[in-house]
């Protein structure tokens, strides 16, 4: 149990230190920099073409298929984690043989690769 919290505690400390580093750097630059605000500094380009419209615009519907492909392979990745944890510990003495685990995961990934091949064949991945 101590090992569990020790491991993730290290990770949590890393996250906290990362956030603190960001905060300290931003705060230090805010303290040290001179503050001379002017409306020109808030424009998109200080010199150049005037920006037209707003930065918020409707994205193309075709991005959605990429988001969906990401979600599918995201769910696949979930099942890779427990496999990756156990696969190096398997040998002839364990309940599962290493060959079996590798073949099972190979079938799983291959089935999803079929989907990727289908998407490729249908030209979904091509932007034309």
């Amino acid at each position, binding site marked *: *149990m101590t090992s*569990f*919290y020790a491991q*993730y505690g290290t990770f*949590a400390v890393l996250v906290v230190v990362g956030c603190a580093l960001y905060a300290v750097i931003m705060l230090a630059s805010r303290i040290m920099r001179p503050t001379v605000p002017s409306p020109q500094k808030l424009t998109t380009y200080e010199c150049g073409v005037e920006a037209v419209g*707003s930065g*918020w*615009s*409707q*994205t193309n*519907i*075709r*991005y*959605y*298929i990429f*988001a*969906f*492909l*990401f*979600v*599918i392979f*995201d*769910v*696949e*990745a*979930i*099942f890779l*984690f*427990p*496999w990756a*944890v*156990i*696969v190096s*510990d398997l040998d002839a003495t364990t*309940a*599962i043989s290493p060959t*079996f*685990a590798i073949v*099972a995961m190979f*079938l*799983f*990934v291959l*089935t*999803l690769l*079929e*989907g*990727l091949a*289908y*998407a490729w064949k*249908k030209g*979904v991945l091509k932007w034309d």
Partner: protein
Amino acid sequence: MTGLDVVFVLVGLLTAAGAVLTVTSKNLVHAALALAVTLAGIAGVFLVLHADFLALVQLVVYVGAVAVLFLFGLMLTRAPIGREALDSQNRGLALAVSGGLFVVLSTLIVLAFGDVRVDAMTGPGIDVIGIAIFAVWVLPFELLSMLLLAALIGAIVLARREDGESGEEAEVTRIEVGDPPINESDGPPAEVAGDGQAELPAGSGGGGQA
């Protein structure tokens, strides 16, 4: 164990702050990002409760996938975003419903598990789950890949662009008599039968933009 309690309370406060920000934000995209913070906070709660695989699933599926789908849904449908201020008229009702739900759920949890003492939080590690998947549940695991494949192919069939359909112009264009409808060969049969001019929603044929 007190150190864990402190971490639990801190993570819980972060989650609650994200949740409050989600419902009070005037900007839809900011609300979606605050929702991602809330879901990540729930992953932290799982981690403190010694459920690391659950935390991982929460992080990958909810923060990764569901938040991405939310953001895409917003950017695809609610454009232009950020212009209009969100102001629901049902604020009082929503507060009453969520407050009532909170009271009921917390009362139930306290009544059910209030006198249960857990000295050491332990649970099956990721390795136990992995062994269980590959020793017992191999067939459902492989069936799951077929399910994901079916979802993938279904999404492609629904969202795929038909050939010759531009999918770019969504506004109604006016077509004069005599102009043969170009690029509409697989669209709905155009009602350009003789009368002055017909309105054709370009690119709406074939369910290509489902």
